């Protein structure tokens, strides 16, 4: 069934994940390192072609479409899996590691999927395994945040599935290739919405800072790499040249930057910058030229490394001190100098400093924009890159490692550089960030299209240096203005957080009301009426006969001392009551029986 012994790297990770809880002691740590390396090796020895083709019902499912586009993503994702697992080597909960590997397996499954059915299977695996990386933080907030994450991704998955079904109905074809983006139909839009939800395109983005800010220390390192970049792959595969993506990408790039200014939590700030950086990739896919697609892939590659590095650097501060808010940190360069250097390298890479990875990848997308005369898009993306340096390159290192020392005594005493395996993982990522920036053929030879793009021209380097250094000037002039406040910023998740509350409140209130009314009618009012009916029924029947006689005799009938009241009093106290009530009940029952049997006929 599997052609030429083709081994899906996802299968290695799934098998490893299932075996992991069975292995105990120090052997588990060794096993944790071997499995991702095996997955990486499986990707390294792949050659282009179609593998793992199975027949299922009427369809032919392709698990292994290997070409340059899928290879570059699979390469960086399995590499990041090694780095992330090394970083999380201290994690004692085997199920957390299991969740991360299943999550990576989901991403790899999507990347090698040749048709929509296989893609959907792994797409859902990603959502349902990654949510545990939030839940394992085991705070009440993480539980709630995980449920919101799952809610949004389930909704997105359903939209995607609807798109696939309608697309299949319209074309009879399930294979996952470039879609007809020139004449988009409803199914194409639905598939696009499903993809861009995972790429965190506003207004479908709020799950990202919500969940990533709340995930475990090593969980966030995994999450920042896989969901959005898998979506970028899916968009590059199916939606190259879809023009609306240019607009959405530019909005993303700016949106993330604006929220980063307001953010006080370092990990949430980094999460908003994921939105901003993925914006470049989405815009690149929208531009759709060979240079732009190359740029989107290169930027995804570089982004996975530097964003992983940044989450590892800030994560190590959280791991050591338990804090991630700027208003509870500061001045830590004395205590955590190594973490500072690594975070700074990540910051310079994301800011596209010459000789760092972002410089050789981001500029391809901006250049592709200029080449296709999309000046507005290129200038706005450049503006956003100034914001990137402002926050990730300057604000994060400055307010954690320098600036005003807001650390409590406890935080200060706990702070020191993280354990060896964390430093090693950060060291590998930092090395690759610089290596990519210095030796461009390493990355450029992996890209889907051959190109002769050269980032290191005098003009481009001077342009980048001017933008960056004068942004730095602005930062130091307005540094007081940028001092974070202990606040949160409302985002689109307000609608479903508050909407959820309104629903809960209305449900609770509604149920309460219904319950109360039910109690009143069925338990109190109705039995009282029935009781009254059966108790005074016979007496009232007798009254029907007696009342005309009284009227004839002319006695006083109504009132407290009237004949009727006296009759009722006597009636209720005599033995006759019991007998008459019994007879009355029997008559009533027979009447009921009569009507019931009549109704039966």
């Amino acid at each position, binding site marked *: 069934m599997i052609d030429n012994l083709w081994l899906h790297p996802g299968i290695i990770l799934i098998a490893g994940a299932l075996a992991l809880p069975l292995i105990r002691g120090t052997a588990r740590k060794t096993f944790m390192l071997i499995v991702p390396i095996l997955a990486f090796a499986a990707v390294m020895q792949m050659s282009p072609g179609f593998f793992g083709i199975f027949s299922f019902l009427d369809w032919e499912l392709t698990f292994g479409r290997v070409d340059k586009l899928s290879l570059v993503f699979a390469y960086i994702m399995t590499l990041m899996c090694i780095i992330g697992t090394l970083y999380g080597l201290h994690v004692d909960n085997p199920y957390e590691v299991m969740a991360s590997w299943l999550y990576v397996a989901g991403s790899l499954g999507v990347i090698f999927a040749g048709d929509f059915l296989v893609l959907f299977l792994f797409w859902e695996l990603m959502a349902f395994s990654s949510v545990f990386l939030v839940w394992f933080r085991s705070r009440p907030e993480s539980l709630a945040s995980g449920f919101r994450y799952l809610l949004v991704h389930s909704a997105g998955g359903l939209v995607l599935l609807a798109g696939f079904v309608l697309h299949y109905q319209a074309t009879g074809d399930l294979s996952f290739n470039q879609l007809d983006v020139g004449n988009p139909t409803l199914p194409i839009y639905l598939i696009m919405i499903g993809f861009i939800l995972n790429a965190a395109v506003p207004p479908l983005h709020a799950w990202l800072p919500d969940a990533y800010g709340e995930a475990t220390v090593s969980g966030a390192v995994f999450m920042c790499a896989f969901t959005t970049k898998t979506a970028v792959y899916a968009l590059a595969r199916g939606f190259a040249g879809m023009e609306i993506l240019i607009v959405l990408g530019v909005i993303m790039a700016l949106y993330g*930057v*604006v*929220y*980063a*200014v*307001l953010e006080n939590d370092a990990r949430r700030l980094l999460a908003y910058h994921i939105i901003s950086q993925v914006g470049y990739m989405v815009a690149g896919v929208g531009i759709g030229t060979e240079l732009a697609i190359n740029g989107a892939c290169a930027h995804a590659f570089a982004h996975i490394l530097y964003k992983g590095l940044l989450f590892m650097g800030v994560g190590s501060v959280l791991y050591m001190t338990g804090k991630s808010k700027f208003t509870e940190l500061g001045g830590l*360069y*004395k205590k955590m*100098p*190594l973490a*500072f*250097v690594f975070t700074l390298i990540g910051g310079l890479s994301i800011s596209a400093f010459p000789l760092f990875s972002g410089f050789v990848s981001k500029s391809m997308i901006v250049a592709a924009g*200029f080449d296709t005369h999309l*000046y507005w898009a*290129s*200038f706005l993306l*450049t*503006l956003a890159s*100034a*914001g990137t340096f*402002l926050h990730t390159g300057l604000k994060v290192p400055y307010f954690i490692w320098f600036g005003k020392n807001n650390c409590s005594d406890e935080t200060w005493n706990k702070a020191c550089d993280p354990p060896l395996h964390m430093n090693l993982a950060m060291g590998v990522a930092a090395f690759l960030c610089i290596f990519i920036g210095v030796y461009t053929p390493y990355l450029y030879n992996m890209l889907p299209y051959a190109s002769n793009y050269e980032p290191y*021209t*005098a*003009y*481009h380097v*001077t*342009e980048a*240096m*001017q*933008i*960056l*250094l*004068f*942004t730095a*000037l*602005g*930062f130091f002039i*307005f540094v007081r*203005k*940028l001092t974070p*406040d*202990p*606040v*949160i*910023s*409302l985002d689109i998740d307000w609608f479903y*957080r508050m909407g959820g509350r309104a629903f809960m409140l209305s449900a609770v209130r509604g149920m309460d009301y219904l319950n109360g009314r039910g109690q009143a009618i069925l338990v109190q009012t109705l039995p009282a009426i029935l009781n009254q009916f059966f108790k005074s029924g016979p007496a009232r029947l007798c009254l029907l006969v007696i009342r005309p006689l009284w009227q004839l005799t002319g006695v006083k009938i109504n009132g407290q001392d009237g004949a009727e009241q006296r009759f009722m009093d006597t009636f209720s106290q005599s033995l006759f009551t019991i007998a008459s009530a019994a007879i009355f009940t029997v008559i009533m029952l027979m009447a009921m029986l009569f009507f019931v049997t009549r109704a039966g006929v």
Partner: protein
Amino acid sequence: MILNIIEYLRTRLGLLIRISWGVLILLLIFDALLLDKTKAHTWAEKLPGFWALFGFLSCVVIIFLSKWYGKLGITKHEEYYD
């Protein structure tokens, strides 16, 4: 070692700031006089120091626009959702 370098630089902060200003000015001079701008995409880029101004203004616009946006009622106290 890293700590020593940082401390060394911090004790000479004044000098460091003067060097930084020097770098900014040299960069502007290089841009205005020596740089080959035939690869520029638009006419505006040919103005001397265009990207320096662009970078600085971007920074200012982002800071003030975001703060203004935050004041519209977007920023709330930390216990808002509790």
